[in-house]
């Protein structure tokens, strides 16, 4: 181009046309390469579905979704995947219980509480948590955490109860005590009321915690590889996602909103709880969804440390029993099913993969929609 431009600044028609075609061609090549990820998505859906459909043709839907008997190698083979779905749901739920409160609290801390230089130290911690390979988490769960749970399960659980219940009940005591003092104001001096109410409530909650902790410390955990173990580790793995996405959402709420709230005399906690979090609730929801997706799609940790027992725990919320998940079943059974390509045993794994894929696709769309809508609402 530069050569012709040097000789004369006006291009001939032919050269101009040539250049336009060249540009068009280049752009279409770029477009094609860009749309590679679209092709990939379509191919993934197509090829998973292609191998999943034969299973439903051969075995139907009813057994897969409702039966609790999972004997893919028996004769006749039985493909009741209900316990596997329940197991997946159980560990995902557990992971959310761990990751969401912690993650949101940490995100609030990062976006509103910590000064800049401290934030620079905390951020790498989150990045490292996100970077550790899943197999290393799985190794930790299997080799370090599982024996610990098996040998000192009660102590760990009761310590956990202290850590979780302590702060929550502490806050509750403060709030309830304050409300009670307000009510008692008519009858007595507030100072006297405080001296009465706070020890009472504090004592009660302390009693509650010690009772719960004592109950938990009496528990015997028969196997360290169980749903609890996996849920905790998955929760830690999902934390970075939850933290960084909800921190972005909190930041996006903007300075004006906060300053308005401060100007009305709210404290920082009130500003965050009553103004900032409601304003960014959709972003936080998106963060939770992404955390769920991370937990549900994780393979190595659940494969190594969930115990891989395909039965529904008794009662269903008993997280101290081994369970089995979709991802672990796919990873574990493919080794044997690979030799029998074409059988139901092979195709059932693709059916499971399709369930996972469909679920994550819907979740992803939902989070995209939520984020888009919230952006519109905030006017950005």
């Amino acid at each position: 181009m530069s050569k012709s431009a040097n000789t004369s600044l006006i291009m001939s028609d032919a050269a101009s046309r040539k250049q336009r075609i060249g540009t068009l061609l280049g752009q279409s090549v770029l477009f094609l390469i860009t749309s590679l990820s679209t092709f990939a998505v379509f191919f993934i859906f197509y090829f998973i579905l292609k191998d999943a459909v034969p299973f439903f043709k051969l075995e139907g839907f009813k057994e897969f979704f409702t039966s609790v008997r999972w004997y893919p190698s028996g004769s006749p083979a039985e493909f009741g995947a209900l316990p596997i779905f329940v197991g997946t749901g159980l560990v995902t739920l557990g992971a959310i219980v761990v990751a969401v409160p912690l993650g949101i609290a940490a995100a609030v801390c990062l976006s509103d509480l910590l000064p800049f230089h401290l934030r620079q130290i905390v951020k790498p911690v989150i990045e490292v948590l996100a970077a550790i390979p899943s197999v290393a988490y799985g190794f930790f769960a299997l080799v370090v955490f599982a024996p610990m749970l098996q040998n000192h399960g009660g102590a760990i659980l009761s310590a956990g109860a202290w850590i979780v219940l302590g702060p929550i009940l502490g806050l509750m005591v403060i709030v309830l005590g304050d409300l009670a003092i307000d009510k008692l104001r008519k009858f007595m001096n507030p100072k006297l009321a405080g001296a009465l109410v706070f020890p009472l409530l504090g004592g009660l909650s302390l009693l509650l915690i010690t009772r719960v902790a004592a109950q938990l410390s009496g528990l015997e955990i028969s196997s360290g590889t169980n749903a609890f173990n996996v849920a905790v580790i998955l929760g830690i793995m999902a934390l970075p996602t939850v933290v960084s996405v909800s921190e972005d959402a909190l930041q996006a709420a903007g300075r004006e909103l906060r300053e308005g709230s401060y100007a009305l005399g709210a404290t920082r906690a009130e500003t965050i709880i009553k103004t900032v979090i409601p304003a960014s609730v959709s972003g936080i929801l998106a963060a939770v969804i992404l955390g769920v997706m991370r937990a549900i799609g994780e393979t190595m940790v659940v494969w190594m440390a969930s115990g891989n027992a395909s039965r529904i725990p008794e009662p269903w919320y008993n997280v101290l029993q081994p369970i089995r998940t979709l991802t672990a079943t796919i990873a574990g059974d493919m080794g044997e099913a690979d030799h029998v390509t074409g059988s139901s045993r092979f195709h059932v794994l693709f059916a499971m993969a399709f369930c996972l894929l469909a679920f994550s696709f819907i979740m992803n769309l939902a989070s995209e929609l939520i984020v888009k809508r919230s952006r519109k609402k905030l006017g950005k």
Partner: protein
Amino acid sequence: MQLQTRKVLDKAFSGLGLVAIAVMAVALLLILAPIMWRGSKAYVFKGTIEHRRVMLEQFDRGNPERFNKETAEAVAARAPLYDMMNAFEAELKEMDRSKRRDYKAAFKEVEKNIEVLLGPAPGDRKPVLLRQQYGQTRWDRSLVKLHETLYSEEWDYSNPDAMGVLVEKPRIDQFRGTALEPLFPYLEEHIEAMLRPRTTFYWQFITDTSKDSHIFGGIWAEVLGTIYLTLGAMLFAVPMGVVAAIYLCEYAKEGRVISFLRICISTLAGVPSIVFGLFGLAFFLNTIHVSDSKSVLAGSLTLSLLILPTIIRSSEEAILAVPRSYKEAALGLGAGRWHTVLTVILPAALPGILTGIVISMGRAAGETAPIIFTAAVSVGAPLKIWETLNQPTPALPWNIYNLCTEHEAVDEIRHVQYGMVFTLVAIVLLLNLTAILMRARISKKLRG
């Protein structure tokens, strides 16, 4: 609410946030500490003379003269032990048949334990299996084995109400009054002279191939496999990703097609990694047959799809971060669009793009699920570069899983498992550290 309480609540709220951060940091520490501490022991540990024997005989490493001198001393220390055993065997022959039967089984066990501890007795035939040709190579394992030699474990069911209890009984009690009795105190006292532990820095752990399925040697095959898979994935994903990012930032006009493209990219980012593995199996291997069996190529292709969205996003961010004035200046000087991208925008965005690439390299190196069905095998030799096109490879993430769940001697090779995890985590964290440092430099440059 009282002002006082509101203030307290405010403080408590801040405290809660700090607790959350602290819990996160503690969790990180709790997970990393055992991996780092015990993993480093695969590299630095107290090696016994058996370790040096393995090094010399299997890897041709070490000073033979010094080794021979040391061996002579160790053999001298071991000689009384074998003398006692021979004496006891002679004594056995003299005994009544009924008495002999009692001793024989117990003696067999002692003999076996000592063989595990010190290696085959002098004069024995050389065992077939490599793991039986040597004694304990590590001092910590030697102490465990020594304990097993000195004490036998028995289940005690004397209390019918409770479960059986494992009790340890000194083996010496079984041999009171025989020629074998002095063996146990002798063994306990002279174990150091027999095995000669010495602090060893075995950095070759990372470059040695494994011998006898990871009982001896290092992890080179796995490390190399991981390197191949990661670089292969980058080879496909980086050009695609960067080009896509350029197109999305500089050429695409926002519209239906592009927002559809973006939805596809985020969908791709959300696909569970195990589904990528199945897709790789169904598409690359069973449909287009990039190779006859699992291969590094198929694994790399699968991994590249997995990291493509990450690379697109980070490259996009880096390109968008280039100040608008750069682009306008270039266009104003008469450069074409493509010319501007190549000579102005890309060089300015390069550090940011590289940061994203380095982070996704860490992700690709650590992913296990996509390579299970497409590339990984449990046992294999290091591959030559051209063999990657059609042969599977061992890889760090897969072999960590394999060694700690399916290996026949899981407890014996804990150090190798920890060493592998340590190596993998170290590789990934180093990559991330590089990325963090690069980003710090970029932000400094943009600010200053």
